[in-house]
């Protein structure tokens, strides 16, 4: 196992190189560059910028250079100095920007994830065990309602309801008063009153699909002879289901569970933007839209790295969960 992991980690180096090239290329794909985005943005509000200004900006950001040269400069900085370059838009080193956001991102995502699993797995299991019961239908209807509602819309509706009817101030994770206040009970409560919306919005679609997938996979497992054999031992039904068929039915989740890591960064960009969350998503979306190349590149590199790690974690978990896989 250890050897396998070491081998995989060694294999990540070329993969990262490939991903970095890919990231860099794809970022270059849309027409224009940061400067033209900037110009377009300025022009939109009726303001003007000189094309000479633009050209000098390009020069300053090194955008005029050959892409290959740009790539090597970028990657060189990362490898030799851990320097991800500066964000054009923010005029700040990318590293400062990224890490500042990651904490909140992790907090929100982990909370969402935990709640998501905490709700969906039991419901999914229940609706498989009691297939076609009222609960099952309710869960199904909820799931598909949640899936068929654009998250964006859900976010706006909830925000609207919470501001207009409950008088909670809009968006973000804290009220202005607590924004920069030190940690206190009141601040935590403030966080809770704000955080439920993003967690709800970010979680619903995921919860819905987890419910359905869990149900589907469990239905297949429930009739296996080993479940009956376990039942014949007189095991309590709940425990029986959890230890035996659920373990096998989790396989599909485990196969992709590692990808929640990169989703920390690149998942639900639009929703976090609408909800005004101080997480990585809106920053990345903004960077992508404004073609803030190094900022976007760093995020993508980071999420690429997380894809690799996530897949490895998934594979390891897969092997742990199913000994038949371990052997091969």
């Amino acid at each position, binding site marked *: 196992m250890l050897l396998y992991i070491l081998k995989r980690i060694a294999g990540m180096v070329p993969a990262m190189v490939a991903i970095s090239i890919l990231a860099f290329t794809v970022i270059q*794909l*849309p027409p224009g560059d940061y400067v033209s985005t900037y110009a377009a943005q300025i022009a939109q509000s009726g303001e003007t910028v000189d094309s000479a200004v633009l050209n000098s900006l390009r020069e300053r950001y090194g955008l005029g250079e050959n892409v290959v040269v740009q790539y090597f400069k970028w990657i060189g900085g990362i490898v030799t100095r851990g320097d991800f370059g500066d964000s054009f838009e923010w005029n700040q080193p990318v590293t400062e920007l990224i890490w500042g956001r990651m904490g909140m991102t992790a907090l929100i995502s982990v909370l969402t994830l935990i709640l998501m699993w905490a709700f969906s797995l039991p419901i999914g299991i229940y609706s498989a065990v009691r297939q076609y019961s009222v609960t099952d239908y309710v869960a199904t209807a909820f799931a598909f309602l949640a899936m*068929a509602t654009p998250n*964006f819309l859900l976010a706006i509706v909830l925000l609207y309801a919470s501001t207009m009817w409950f008088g909670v101030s809009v968006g973000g994770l804290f009220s202005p008063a607590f924004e920069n206040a030190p940690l206190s009970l009141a601040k935590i409560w403030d966080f809770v009153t704000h955080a439920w919306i993003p967690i709800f919005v970010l979680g619903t679609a995921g919860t819905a699909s987890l419910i359905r997938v869990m149900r*589907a996979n469990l*239905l297949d497992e429930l009739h296996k002879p080993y479940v009956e054999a376990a039942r014949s031992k007189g095991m309590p039904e709940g425990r029986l289901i959890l230890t035996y068929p659920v373990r096998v039915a989790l396989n*599909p989740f485990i196969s992709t569970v590692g990808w929640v890591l990169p989703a920390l960064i690149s998942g639900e960009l639009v929703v976090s933007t609408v909800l005004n969350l101080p997480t990585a998503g809106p920053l990345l979306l903004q960077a992508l*839209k404004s073609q803030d190349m190094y900022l976007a590149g760093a995020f993508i590199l980071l999420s690429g790295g997380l894809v690799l790690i996530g*897949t490895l974690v*998934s594979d390891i978990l897969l092997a742990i969960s199913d000994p038949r896989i371990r052997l091969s």
Partner: protein
Amino acid sequence: MLDQQLTAGRLQAAGQWTLFWHKFKKHKLAVLSLVIVGLIYFVALFAEFLAPQDPAKFDPRFTYVPPQAIGWFVDDGAGGSRFQPHVTGFDIKVDAKSFRRIFTPKPSEIIPIGLFVKGQSYKMWGLFDADIHLIGPLEKNKPFFLAGGDRLGRDLLSRTIHGTRISMSIGLVGVSLSLIIGMILGGISGYRGGLVDRVIQRVIEFIRSVPTIPLWLGLAAAMPKDWPPLQVYFSILVILSLIGWTEIARVVRGRFLSLRSEDFVIAARLDGVSEFRLIMRHMMPSLYSHIIAAVTLAIPHMILAETALSFLGLGLQPPIVSWGVLLQDTQNLRAITQAPWLFVPGICVVVAVLSLNFLGDGVRDAADPYAK
């Protein structure tokens, strides 16, 4: 001595299908869903005929007009009433401050409606000219907004009907495409294991790392300008599904890794079955439940994907409409507070998705040997 308990009989011809249908029929909701899905496709097929209006036709007088109700009887002037389906016109006032049109139904203005009426002409399936609409006002240019109007005074019902076509076709193509690729590659990866598995897994990781937004933006710009919008959109979708197969592939692989050592898989291999058939016919059925669930979940995703795409200035271009595009209009406070009827396409999405899901459930159960 022979086992004669099962009375000897003919080996049934269409055995499995009969069996399948027999089981499927028992699932009432699935049958109902099948009917609804059938209806939806009927609507998609005959959209031009079923829609009362041209979906692009705008009318400045009727921006954000609320839905009209159908009345059945009108006064015959002699104190009685006679049967005449109709809608009523509106008194339209523009609010001086908010510049919003205020529509007050005007019961005195009766707009008789009927079936198979002459209306705007259209080209059925782009083939032949026609001007008969299933339902509409008897007089051609009278207001007729059963589902209300949108911000440009277009008939939402007609737009929703036309949107059915795109949403229920192209989106599904995308889903199926990524599903098929995912099943095959995931299948091979899990079944073969070893080097093949490693290579495919690395490819998956690679694809997962592709940032989608710049890719979309790049693709949108790369499409030839003289391509019709549908073709552009279709191409983007195809490319999206080319990178969207990774999740299902991972799942299939994960299950296959444990399935492949099962005796029945070995047995099939010893039957000399080709690898493709082994994967698709012998191993994949063990995952049908998951796949059906994944598909029914992916469909709303695809239908709504346009909404997100348009957020970035991609996706479908007018005059083509789809449910996703229509829902785009609901994503602002104006719709939420003042024009709730704009959510009609959303209801369609929910109905379509629910019925596809229950259809899927029925299929799953019918294919499940253990189910009743």
